[in-house]
């Protein structure tokens, strides 16, 4: 951490590497498309690199970086007025067809939410964070996160169930 703070890129790389895949996955859920998500992560990396000297407590790095990632992803998403459905990665084998359809339904439902909704859902159900940790990542009070999660989930479920009909 000290080396990264002093300007060592390799050290910064080692510091951030364990969180990259998850950060990209979460950003993809928020932004809706992986190449845009990668842009968001690059922005997040730049911001984290630039501001690392301001982070006094090394133990806070994961939450601090997560917050930067979420903010970058929301910013990228808001710049794009049209939501793009998440991509299916690969064609599913026949025995996983139900699951593939399930994911497709979820993906379409997510694309109907706004970036804020998707961010709170990503933090709670993808990252698996507690309300307190999600609040820290979003810079919101816990009560706000609770109500946002409730409403986001309700909207998502409505969209998901509508796909069933």
């Amino acid at each position, binding site marked *: 951490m000290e080396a990264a703070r002093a300007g060592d890129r390799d050290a910064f790389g080692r510091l951030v590497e364990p969180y990259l895949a998850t950060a990209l996955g979460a950003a993809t859920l928020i932004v809706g498309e992986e190449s845009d998500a990668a842009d968001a992560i690059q922005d997040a990396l730049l911001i984290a690199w630039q501001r690392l000297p301001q982070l006094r407590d090394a133990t806070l790095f994961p939450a601090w970086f997560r917050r930067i990632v979420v903010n970058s992803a929301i910013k990228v998403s808001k710049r794009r007025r049209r939501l793009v459905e998440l991509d299916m990665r690969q064609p599913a084998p026949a025995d996983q067809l139900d699951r593939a359809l399930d994911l497709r339904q*979820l993906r379409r439902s997510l694309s109907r939410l706004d970036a804020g909704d998707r961010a709170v859902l990503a933090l709670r159900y993808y990252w698996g964070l507690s309300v307190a940790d999600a609040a820290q990542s979003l810079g919101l009070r816990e009560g706000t996160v609770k109500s946002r999660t409730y409403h986001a989930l309700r909207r998502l479920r409505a969209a998901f169930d509508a796909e069933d009909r």
Partner: protein
Amino acid sequence: MKDDRSNLTEDRLTDGLRALGTADPVEVERLRRSIAYLPDRSRRALPAFGFRRSVLVGLASLVVIAVVAAALLPLAVHSLSPVSSAASATPTSVASPVASPSASSSASTGATPTRPAPTPTLSPTATVSPGPSPTYLAGYVAFNRSVVWNLTDSGLNFSNDDGATWSSVKLPASLSLRSYTGIATPQMAVGSDGTLFVAFGEGRNVRLYSRSPSGAWSNVLLKPKWSSDLDSSTVPDMLMIQSGPGDLVAVAATIGIGMTTAETRLFLSTDDGQTFVQHVPNSLAFEYWYSLAFVDARNGVLVLGATGSYITALHTSDGGTTWAASKVPDFSATYWNYGQATAVDQDIVLPLQTWDYDASGNVENDELHLLVSHDGGTSFEQSGTAVPADSDNTATFGDATWVVAGGESPAIYETADRGETWTKVPAEVWPRGIYSIVLTGPESAIALAIESGCTDFKSGCMTKTWLVRTTDGGHTWTAP
């Protein structure tokens, strides 16, 4: 949180999100490698406001801006033969490894992919090109921050690693590159969401193909309302595409370049190219449109010129039907030229190059000024100070603008504060021949460079076009 009436249980949601959020290892690796190119903290001595604004404004165009090289590419394109012949001697040429559309389908069944499929947004219909990686490019190039597209007469290819490796993309069945033999060269642009737009002349009309990030193709035929007194055999000479901001797409077609009857028609879309409204500009007897920059569906600037007259900046506030001259500052220089107009958030940045001639006819007092409009192009004011550059080859990203100067003292001039302060990056450390540059961040850029020359008088001539990229403010450049 329970909602027993919904089929989406928390377990199902968690499981689904984790599946959908599984990151592509190739992209993760790419990001990991990008860390090595993070800019030096000490170099970025920008005030917090400047940095924040760069990031915020920049996000508008992060994934945006396409280099439409074809307008400047006739030279490179028409020298396709020498490139091909020169390239055939080298296994790294784009000419041989890039598969033709028909070859690509056979490659998909017969060839073993040499690397994992790139980002899934680009790869659903792609096949990895067989053979060595290409170095030099022919044809048309468009790129945004994460992908480079290259259209040649043998197919459409993309690269996610700045041209080191290429993958071919299956073209729609209706698109036969060989059927487009019109005068107008194809134009490409990449939208903010990664959509690729390719415009071809089709008879007197324009066919606009778009490929969504998911790989789906669609097309629309734009039928310009040309004046009836034009010869029916006249076809468009020049096409232009501007993609963004947001879902705005502008397509302009010019017919009759070189004739007094030349005219241009403008098509504007506010739904990312799905539907267009045609605008017949009033009394614009100009020959060509140099650049377009709309800040929204109504307000924009057009830079145009004509034989025998200077380049002119006009603005519209009705989407492109009526145009009037933009108000620009008075300059003492006798000669001037405008560069590429660029929409940045709600502003329009317009580079202005000025110069004079001394008594012996030598150029003197070369300067490049940045003009900025805050009112959709109605008026411009000078931003910051001028730089002594003999070029209008500029690129803008947020508050950052780079000027690529050639001539006797080639250099890149950079500003991070709209021209208040400039930094000169000397020529020794960047590849000469940059003729088209796009900023992908305040300190990063991708550019097309051309190297051409002859080993003897009119013999042994070659032209090479390739991609170069910098991530440290132009100090060092990489090439594939």
